[in-house]
């Protein structure tokens, strides 16, 4: 770690002011990505603006036909929350299977999607459900929010305050874990939403992506066999120590099939 300044923000507005004042400062949520990078000296913020004390960023609530999750809601909180378990059990399950207990007790939804790790789970949940990311400046559709690895639509100083999820008719997330990191080697989120069927894939490519062909087939018939023979091209997928691109492509189909089966239970 390098030396840095530290301040606890009292409110979102306070955080926005502090972060705007110093271009090298960073927001601190659960620290589960940021602190680890700092410890390895891969990240060198001049200052940390801690969002941890802002109580009104930690909530979930049902607003009409959407579920809104405050940015500082930890994974453990989302996993245990009765509203979430009832409205979108797939999202509660997703949060409950992130990392380990310590990570879930610290890591937050805002931090996770701001990081946009290409193997993170929440990006699949957000895109799969057609969520809207609410920030201090605007509302951004999940489809437009996530870029290629570690890139998002966030502008400097912009703070995520909440994520709004349309409540789907049914949904499921199946994650094939990287043996070492337990992040998603391939994770597929499938949902039948008011706006149609969505299939979002994380871990396989440089960022979360949708599979239009699967969405079409599932719109016609929401059943595992509809996707069983749909293969995504391996060309643009990740290839690394843990999985080659053809294996990842194959797993997309298998996980999609299993997610549809689970959503249909």
């Amino acid at each position, binding site marked *: 770690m390098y030396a840095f300044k530290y301040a606890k923000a009292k409110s979102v507005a306070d955080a926005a002011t502090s972060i705007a004042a110093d271009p090298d400062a960073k927001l601190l949520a659960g620290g589960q990505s940021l602190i680890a990078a700092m410890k390895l000296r891969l990240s060198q913020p001049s200052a940390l603006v801690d969002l941890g004390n802002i109580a009104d960023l930690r909530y979930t609530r049902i607003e009409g036909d959407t579920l809104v999750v405050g940015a500082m809601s930890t994974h453990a909180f989302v996993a245990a929350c009765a509203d979430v378990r009832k409205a979108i059990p797939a999202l509660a399950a997703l949060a409950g299977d992130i990392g380990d207990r310590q990570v879930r007790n610290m890591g937050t939804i805002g931090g996770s999607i701001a990081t946009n790790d290409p193997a993170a789970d929440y990006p699949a949940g957000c895109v799969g459900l057609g969520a809207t990311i609410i920030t201090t400046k605007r509302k951004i559709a999940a489809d437009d929010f996530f870029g290629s690895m570690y890139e998002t639509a966030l502008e400097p100083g912009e703070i995520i305050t909440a994520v709004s999820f349309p409540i789907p008719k049914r949904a499921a997330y199946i994650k094939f874990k990287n*043996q*070492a*990191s337990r992040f998603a080697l391939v994770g597929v989120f499938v949902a039948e939403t008011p706006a149609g069927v969505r299939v979002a894939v994380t871990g396989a490519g440089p960022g979360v992506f949708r599979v239009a062909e699967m969405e079409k087939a599932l719109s016609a018939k929401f059943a595992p066999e509809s996707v069983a023979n749909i293969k995504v091209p391996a060309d643009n997928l990740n290839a690394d*120590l*843990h*999985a*080659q691109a053809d*294996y990842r492509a194959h797993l997309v189909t298998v996980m999609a099939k299993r997610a549809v089966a689970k959503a249909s239970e």
Partner: protein
Amino acid sequence: MSHDDFHGRLEDDRMVTGSGTYSLDWDFPQAAHAWFLRADRAHAQIVSIDASAALAHPGVIAVLTGEDLQAAGFKSLPVLTIPTRPDAMKPLLPFRPCLATGKVRMAGEAVVCVIAETQQIAMDATELVSVEYKELPPVVDALDALKPGAPQVHADVPGNLYWDYDDGDQAGTDALFAKAATIVKHDLYNHRVIGNPMEPRCCISEYDAAKEQYFLYSPTQGPRIQAAMVAKVLGVPTDKVDVVAKDTGGGFGIRSAVYPEYCVTLLASKKLGRPVCWNGSRSESFLTDNQARDFICHGELALDDKGKFLSMRFYMVANNGAYLAPTGLLSQTRSVTSCITGVYDVPVAHARIKLVATNTAQVAAYRGAGRPIMSTMLECLVERAAIDLDMDPVEIRRNNLIRKDQFPYAMTNGTTYDCGDFEAVLDDALAAADWKGFEQRRAESAKRGKLRGRALSTYIESTAAGGIPDEAQLRFEADGTLSLFASSHSHGQGHETSFAQVVSRVLGLPMKTIKLRTGEAGMRVGGGGTGGSRSMVSFGSSFFLGAQEVVKKGKELAAKELEAAPADITFDHGEFSIAGTDRRISLQNLIQKHQGTHPHPLDSSSANKYGMTYPNGAHIAEVEIDPETGVTDIISYIAVDDIGNVITHALVEGQMQGGLTQGAGQIFGEHAIYDRESGQLLTGSFMDYPMPRAVLVEGLQIIDHPVPTALNPLGAKGVGEAGCTGALPTLSNAILDALRPVGVKHFDMPATPQRVWQAIQEAKAGRPSAMLSYTLEYA
């Protein structure tokens, strides 16, 4: 012996409440902090080092380079165990400096040490040191390194060959092969792994100028043996070094060694006149701890026309890395070949192992230390024979086992097995595993779309090797407790409990009053450390004999008290009495009578060498593969082991569990991978290096089948590594058994989901041996 005196481990309260004392828990508020600049490349000439900016950085106290160590008279890091060969060439032992001089030979090699007021400052200043390198091409693969024209790791190791090791009877073996009806050949790669104890490598080093004494607070498996290694580097007598440790957070063999940082910080402490602390990171442990395995193996089995084994021969190429590790070459040579033909009645065999230099971390002893190399080779070869010759995998083994009446069983490589009952062990395993019911279970798995596989493997290993007498001291303290002293340091095994138990059973004293002390400053007891599954066999035996010595001395004291002749005194359940009378005095009473006198008249010690023991077993695993994803689960694992007399089943079970889990860890994913172009370690963190998890071995059943050895008074055989030695072949064979029906002929570990899935795809595409990493020819 009874087992009802086990009520949990004495050390556990401390461990589970977080009040253990690990190396950096020792309190040295005045310590300076060291940080190391490490080679960012695998192979390069050091052109120049400029540390001026670092030295000028506020808070920096000193910077040390290889030249400073040379000036201080530092010797090479030692290479301790080198088996003697009568005729073969001797190993080449290139100089291994504590800080690279002239050249860096592996990524992560320490080049410069910066010492500052805080760790933070030391880290900052390390970034200010500039090293100019002249890049050299690295070689990371052992077969690449042996090719003509390969980059040379050491100028004085021509062709990168440290040693062409040879064991057994080559002429005799060749003669038997000439008579064979069939010769079965098999290749496999036992890939490289990294040990990963929970406590990363670290130390606090202190030099006491008044006493001219070096104190090293570091994780250790044997404080005195480690002190001896440190002393060799510093060029001082062993007595001038104390390795101090209370709790050690895991070791697996890799915490036995001296490491460069220990010696550099000791010198720094001497120069600065204050203690120096090095808080090594996990990344540094990954890069520069002794690594393990990395053997390319080829085996051949000669059979007659009835399926009887005639002989075996092996050729192996061991990637030993950029240096030879201080723990020595035993694990790379004789430990591999000592049980050269396993539990089989094959006295004549031959093995050749080439130890090769590459630009990777040094490879040395790690749980099993060479024995899993041979057990895996051997049992995969026997399994291959059963398949190729269409023989039953149980019968081919049973028909070739050494029979109970053949002991002592001598082989031409110099090994003699003292005892065993291999067939009974095998039968126990078959019975526990419901061997005959397998086809039904396989069919049931198939219904669920799963591939089920099952395999039986045997193993035998040489344990408890030791060159010097292992000493146990028993001292009665003024506070009424009994201190046990030994240089065998627990790094998780539970020595405090098991040695106390051995002594308590002899003396009838309560466990809680017996305290094991192994890593104290000033302690001088002889013997090796913990390693090679030797602690119970050797130190346990010495404590047993030492406790009997107490009884003997007690009889003399009691005789005086009871006014009788010592010969008439008997000892039972903690009481001395005159045979046939009710006149008695308790040991406790005798202890108290002399409490506070030093030495206490009952103080005793024992130091002995004990013979190697040969634990063995038969393991049966059933696995299930999801062919859609390549995920493999262990459904059941039966381990029947003869580890001689069992002193405490719970602790034995712990060791077996740990060993099996570590074996399973390697089989299912642990893998140190170096980039062939750059020589960089690609799996240098837990993000990329998968550790085994508890669920891996859920269906574990551990069954004791003791055949006591007469080679030590406890009748015990080593248990610490047996699980690992058995698990590698058993799981390898079970996985291939599951994959064979879909056409896979060869499968080199690790069985990661990707590799298992790929094996199935390759087999479908007509490439049944695609997952074979290397092939060698016996020569």
